[in-house]
């Protein structure tokens, strides 16, 4: 009896093992059921588990998204990278910002940077962009700008490239502004600013300094320095869609009064008017952009407009077939047309045409005698704007020019 019971127990155990699904591939080559076969495969993997090891690309991109972005865009101390002004060259320095001022309603930003072309600047700025339910913008700033190598070719439409000279413009500035948004796309505002500029020698030894090449008549303000109190009013309508526009437009008018607080000789008004319109077609993947810009000045109280306060044309965002600040005068007219086509998401090609002039007389603000250029370019972009572009300009009387720029044109 006991022996029979033992045999029965052995048979029962064997039956249970075979039917429990705990069969292992090590016991026999062919599993009895599909479920057993799957179980065996998983059992084999269970003996050879390994942690996930991200590869270099994964680690790098994860680091960039999780950490590096915040290094470049961090709160507190941050690396200041980019240009200080048009033509300054690449600049680098240190900044400090707090965009969480007063519970996210304000921001403070202070930075100091130097550029590859010897430019230097330091600035502190406090902004409250969205007070009173986003209807009020208030801002204050103070800074020092040391532009070491600005170029001057003479005034008016007849200036020659061979007359290139340079100068340094060092300015201390502080001021404040306020603007009101009657509705989201329109802002009306004004500012008060005190400027302490000083013209000196430039840092390009290959060309003469402006004070050696030009006199007071050809470059007003070169022989005397003056402080200015600038009062300024503006109206801006921005209906671009999106910020790197595929349709919509932008209109801005600025009126500034520069009061010479030192000599009384350089008091003047300046009026700027900038209109841009964008027409998109084929789902906004083809865009025609048009821009018209007019700037005009007039002397006040018997003074003259200092040359460094006059509008300029030439460079990566105006006449792209010419050097930076190639043309300067008390008045300026600029017309630009650009056709952009999307090659891939984030990369556009562009064909452009620029025309403009800087006449000495306001009556010459017409379409006669315009300097012209044309060219092509590429824009790496997002909806918020152009990150980087390359523009090659041709057809000007100064020869071809290539511009590589962090930032947009219009």
């Amino acid at each position, binding site marked *: 009896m006991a022996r029979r019971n033992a045999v029965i127990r052995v048979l029962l155990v064997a039956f249970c093992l075979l039917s429990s699904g705990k069969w292992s591939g090590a016991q026999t080559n062919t599993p009895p059921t*599909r479920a057993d076969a*799957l179980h065996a*495969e998983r059992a084999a993997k269970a003996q050879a*588990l390994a942690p*996930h090891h991200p590869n270099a*690309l994964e680690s790098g991109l994860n680091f960039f998204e999780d950490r590096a972005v915040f290094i470049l865009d961090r709160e507190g101390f941050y690396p200041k990278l980019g240009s200080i002004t048009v033509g300054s060259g690449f600049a680098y320095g240190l900044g400090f910002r707090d965009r*969480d001022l007063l*519970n996210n309603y304000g921001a403070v930003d202070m930075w100091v940077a130097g550029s590859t072309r010897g430019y230097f600047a330091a600035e502190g700025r406090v902004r409250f962009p969205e007070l009173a339910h986003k209807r009020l913008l208030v801002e204050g700033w103070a800074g020092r700008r040391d532009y070491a190598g600005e170029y001057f070719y003479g005034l008016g439409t007849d200036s020659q490239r061979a007359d290139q000279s340079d100068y340094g413009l060092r300015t201390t500035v502080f001021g404040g502004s306020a603007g009101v948004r009657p509705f989201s796309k329109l802002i009306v505002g004004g500012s008060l600013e005190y400027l302490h500029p000083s013209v000196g020698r430039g840092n390009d030894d290959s060309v003469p300094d402006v004070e050696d090449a030009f006199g007071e008549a050809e470059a007003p303000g070169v022989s005397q320095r003056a402080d200015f109190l600038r009062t300024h009013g503006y109206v801006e309508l921005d209906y671009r869609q999106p910020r790197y526009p595929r349709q919509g437009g932008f209109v801005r008018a600025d009126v500034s009064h520069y009061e010479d607080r030192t000599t009384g000789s350089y008091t003047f008004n300046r009026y700027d008017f900038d209109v841009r319109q964008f027409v998109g077609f084929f789902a906004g993947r083809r865009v025609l952009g048009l821009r018209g810009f007019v700037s005009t000045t007039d002397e006040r109280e018997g003074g003259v407009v200092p040359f460094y306060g006059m509008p300029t044309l030439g460079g990566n965002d105006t006449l792209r077939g010419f050097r930076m600040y190639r043309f300067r005068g008390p008045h300026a007219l600029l017309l630009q047309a650009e056709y952009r086509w999307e090659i891939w998401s984030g990369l556009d090609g562009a064909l452009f045409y620029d025309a403009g002039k800087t006449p000495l007389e306001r009556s010459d603000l017409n379409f006669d005698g315009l300097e012209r250029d044309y060219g092509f370019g590429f824009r790496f972009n997002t909806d918020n704007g152009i990150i980087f572009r390359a523009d090659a300009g041709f057809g000007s009387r100064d020869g071809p020019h290539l511009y590589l720029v962090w930032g947009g044109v219009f």
Partner: protein
Amino acid sequence: MLVATDAAAPRFYPDDPIWTDDDRAFDASGVGTIEDSNGYDFVANTFSNPGERRDVRAPNVNTVDELPDSSWFTNRIGRRPMSVADVVRGPDQRDGVDMAGWVVSGGKSSGVQPGFRMTDSSGQTYQIEVDPSSNPEMASGAEMIGTALYHAIGYSVVEVYLTELDPKTLVIADTAMMRDPLNGKRRRVRPRDLELVFERAARQPNGRYRVLVSRFASGRPIGNFRYYGTRPDDPNDVVAHEHRRELRGARVFGAWLNHDDSRGVNSLDMLEAAGGRSWVKHYMFDFGSILGSGTVFAQRHRAGNEYIFEQRPGWLTLATLGFYIRPWMRIDYPDMPPSVGRIEAEVFDPQQWRPEYPNPAFDNMRSDDAFWAARIVSRFTDEMIRGVVAKAQYSDPKATEYLGDVMIKRRDKVVKAFINVVSPVVDAGLDADGTLRFANAAVDARAATPPAGYTLQWFAFDNATDTRRDVGDPVQVTSPEGRAPAELLTGSDFIGVRVSAAHPDHPGWSSPASFTFRRAATGWDLVGVER
């Protein structure tokens, strides 16, 4: 399932076809977190071609070419009838949410849609998301629709509900933490953080905000799954994802619903535990960018039509200075309420549809995968679709009507495109007396006209050696039925029939579907299907 075994393994095991794959059998508590960044997911899938591209039958299908239930997929509308109410209800376990007593418990950890987290009095966590002010109801509506449909299809999804919220009533828990968007550091949630969320949100005329409430799934989040490879630390994950039927077939569902965001970073892996053992459950996640919704803006024109980076059209466009116009740029979308976003059905071509960037599982989709998915899509009736769209609660009836129309048209196109790529013969049954009956899925779905007839070739099958022997000559029948040769009924334990048809519009029908039957006590059981 088609598991690699040694040469002595039979083609059909005694338990075939299996309908449940026990991929919870081994403890997976040692798994780590895999959370891909958007940048890596894009770069890896666009430029490095991850995973294996191979024309191989999905290894995780059973022997009748269907999917067993698993941690990845639960057969629902594909296997059993579902009522309209069942489809509409989706994963929801309750009729709605009552936010009384809820507190804000954290910020939103990922995704572009603004939001935050809340916890109810029982400790259950929810994610709260708002619609963009430019397109009220758009993203939340898309989420409601996508969740219900993907649930009915068979994927695991989280419960989602719509409700209204008054920001003034929100209470922030003392322990609520978030990642500061300015510096990436964790800090306490402040009232201003919530103000910034609602500043970007669509506000209703009554001053409240419509929000999407997503109930956190049970378990511990461990990141996302990838559409290629396997988790090296999960013992249950043995089938390369680029070859899984439910991931390959998701291309068809993605085309139908314009789920251009079908990518690994929009999935969710949760580690669940019970009885001292843990396993990974895989969720489809984040349907804010389906149909006409691009989550925070209307769907872009390119979405569903071209990858973000696609070589040929780009080089053509560059070389022609933009004179080459991609076809999708010419699509004229009707003027619809902003809650619809941007979607249409007239120009839509399911065969040409693609997600934002290459997806290895989608690239591996074969005709049999597509057929399986198309059959599932064909089961969604007009009433089900309109019922699900109604669940999105668009305030403008024009939006409800248009989206329903578009989804029905896209369904019809998807079914017609993919159900005819192989022989659509299904549901084969063999009586004890040898009478064969079968159905035509394409004809039943009104995606094709009936053929003039079918060709049947009977065979005997040796399960031990995996060999077939044709019996008799091919037989022509004019209706979906036939009779097995008498000698076949007595000679073998496994017999089968290959069924093909000729249709002038569908050359794929000529490739036969093969059905194998195993002798059972009361007749013959279907044990194998091949297309």
